[in-house]
């Protein structure tokens, strides 16, 4: 059976200040119908760019090579009506910041029914009835009242549920979720996540889920891709990624995450700063921050190699280090500058003092 979504050798360059800069290089993965794939990485690692390439929402002037096939058809070659049909029927996108991504001067009802009325030619009354049902599906039971409200009258968590409801409205086959819970309060995050995961299963939709949270990816996704500096560094089953990471970066991400039941004097932060693809040095982009790096790592970018069992790693020393990556070592990073997973780790570090 051929996959629903196949991304092969995808590279993207964006024009920045007159020159083209690589933001994504050689990304390849596939996603079966109804399956979930996580894309994990720090900001600037290229995970959003990957999703935007699939929805064809890259900024104007972007140069794309490689191929994206949806249900066998080449997405990058879609034009005009075909592209609109693809966007309106096949994929649906959920954005990180629901407030910025809803028109502030249009009512919630308008936002929910717009797609049905314009793309599906559903009569207004019928569309409104559907909208109330959809809101009930995402746990909003006073739908009729909500339809008359404006986005600024809803909390972030509620608005993100509306976003999810709106993307269900057209029953897409693929959901692109770009950090759907990052901008929300910690308490509402899990709630929204649970709704999204449940509906994804019930509707049998495939989902490409972006997050910077490895644990969350492991909980939600069948498989996980870890990205660094615009390239995939690891790709394997989510469950095994946790116990058997195949790239030093994935391992470092895991260790930089605080655990609730263990008190540590200082969280091991990854030393140095995350790099974007175009700033990356020759060789392995992670080498400058890697405690296992050798001279050879800095010479050339290693290929993404199969490690058996549909697991892939872009580390030269993957086979040699396998099983030792998670060993607690006295971390070379001294004064935690640039915490690995960013926001939450930095905060937790303060608390742990």
């Amino acid at each position, binding site marked *: 059976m051929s996959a629903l979504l196949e991304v092969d050798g995808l590279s993207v360059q964006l024009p920045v200040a007159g020159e083209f800069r690589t933001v994504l290089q050689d990304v390849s993965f596939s996603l079966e119908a109804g399956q979930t794939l996580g894309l994990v990485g720090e900001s600037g690692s290229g995970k959003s760019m990957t999703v935007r390439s699939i*929805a064809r*929402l890259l900024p104007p002037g972007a140069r794309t090579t490689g191929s994206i096939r949806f249900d066998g058809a080449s997405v990058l070659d879609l034009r005009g009506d075909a*592209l*609109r*049909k*693809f*966007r*309106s*029927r096949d994929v*649906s*996108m959920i*954005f990180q*910041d629901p407030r*910025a*991504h*809803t*028109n*502030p*001067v*249009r*009512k919630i009802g308008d936002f929910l029914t*717009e*797609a049905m009325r*314009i*793309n599906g030619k559903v009569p207004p009354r019928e569309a409104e009835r559907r909208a109330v049902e959809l809101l009930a599906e995402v746990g909003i039971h006073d739908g009729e009242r909500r339809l008359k*409200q*404006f986005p*600024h*009258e*809803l*909390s972030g968590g*509620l608005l993100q549920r509306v976003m999810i409801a*709106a993307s269900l409205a*057209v029953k897409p086959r693929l959901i692109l979720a770009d950090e759907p819970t990052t901008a929300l309060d910690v308490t509402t995050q899990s709630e929204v996540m649970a709704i999204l995961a449940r509906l994804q299963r019930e509707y049998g939709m495939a989902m490409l889920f972006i997050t910077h949270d490895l644990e969350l990816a492991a909980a939600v996704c069948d498989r996980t891709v870890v990205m660094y500096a615009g390239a995939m560094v690891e790709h394997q089953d989510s469950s095994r990624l946790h116990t058997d990471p195949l790239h030093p970066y994935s391992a470092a991400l895991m260790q930089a995450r605080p655990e609730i039941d263990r008190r540590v004097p200082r969280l091991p932060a990854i030393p140095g700063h995350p790099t974007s693809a175009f700033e990356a040095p020759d060789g392995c982009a992670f080498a400058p921050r890697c405690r296992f790096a050798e001279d050879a790592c800095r010479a050339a970018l290693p290929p993404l190699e199969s490690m058996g069992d549909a697991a892939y790693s872009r580390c030269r020393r993957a086979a040699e280090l396998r099983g030792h990556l998670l060993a607690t070592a006295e971390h070379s990073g001294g004064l935690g500058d640039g915490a690995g997973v960013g926001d939450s780790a930095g905060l937790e570090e303060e608390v742990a003092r």
Partner: protein
Amino acid sequence: MNSPAARAAWHTIRFLGGRIGGLLATLLASSFVVFGALYLAPGSPMTFLTHGRSMTPDAIAQINQQYHFDEPFAMQYVRWLGGILQGDFGRSILYKDAVSSLLAQRIGTTVALVALSALLVAFVGLAIGIFSGLKPGFASNALMGMSTAAMAVPTFVAAVVLTLVLAVELGWFPVFGVGTDPIDMVYHLVLPAFALSLASIAFVARLSQAAIRQEISADHVQTAIGRGFPYGVVVRRHVLRNASLPVLTVLGLTLAGMISGTVVVEQVFQLNGVGSLLVSSVQQKDFPVVQAICLVYVAAFIILNTVIDLAYSILDPRVSVGGGKP
């Protein structure tokens, strides 16, 4: 009072009440400035009003009856204001005629001039702005460059150049006058209206272009594109609607600029409207007329601004009219 609908209605009433109260307060303050100006003049108000003209005792009694100089200042103001509220703007010293009838004869020309200019701003300015906002490229840049230049052209310069080229050299338009029938009047007013609105057209064009550019790159427009809506729907429902808000906010100032600009334009094209009456009254020291016209102009300006303010709060749900909570 506890149902949401009643609460929303209460909020709306309070909001409207606040705006109308503000409107009345500003009108009152401006009328006070216009009236009090009389007392800032050197010498006594009476000598200022008569300006050394030899006046008949009748005429002096007439002025005294209008301003009540024998009464205390506050009383004079209240009487004057009361008269104005009843449509009595006093008598012109020069024309010996009621100011209200002088105004009535001339206000039509001025209103027609401002209305025609406003139409030009709305249609030409927005057309240029929308086109250049949606279609970046050479034509858009050229139009924006021209608009930047046009914004630096004062009304009287525009009037001079338009008269020279279109009226005197080419003879396409009459040099001055108002014409006889309505169609002829519009024909006579085209040049003056264009001179009056040129800078505003350019301003609105630039502003709407900038607003559209900004809105087009907004995240919520990405959502609409990502949902597969046709280009026309995205532009109409999500770009233009939102971009109209910042344009609307400056429309008041633009109109105000045009209202006071009629003073200049009517002078150039010798239109006998309220603006040219103001200038000639200042020159001939006919102060009751000056007072009345200043008041009418300021009132028009303030009322227009309030109307636009209200329109804005209807169009932008984020300005809390209803004041609902999640």
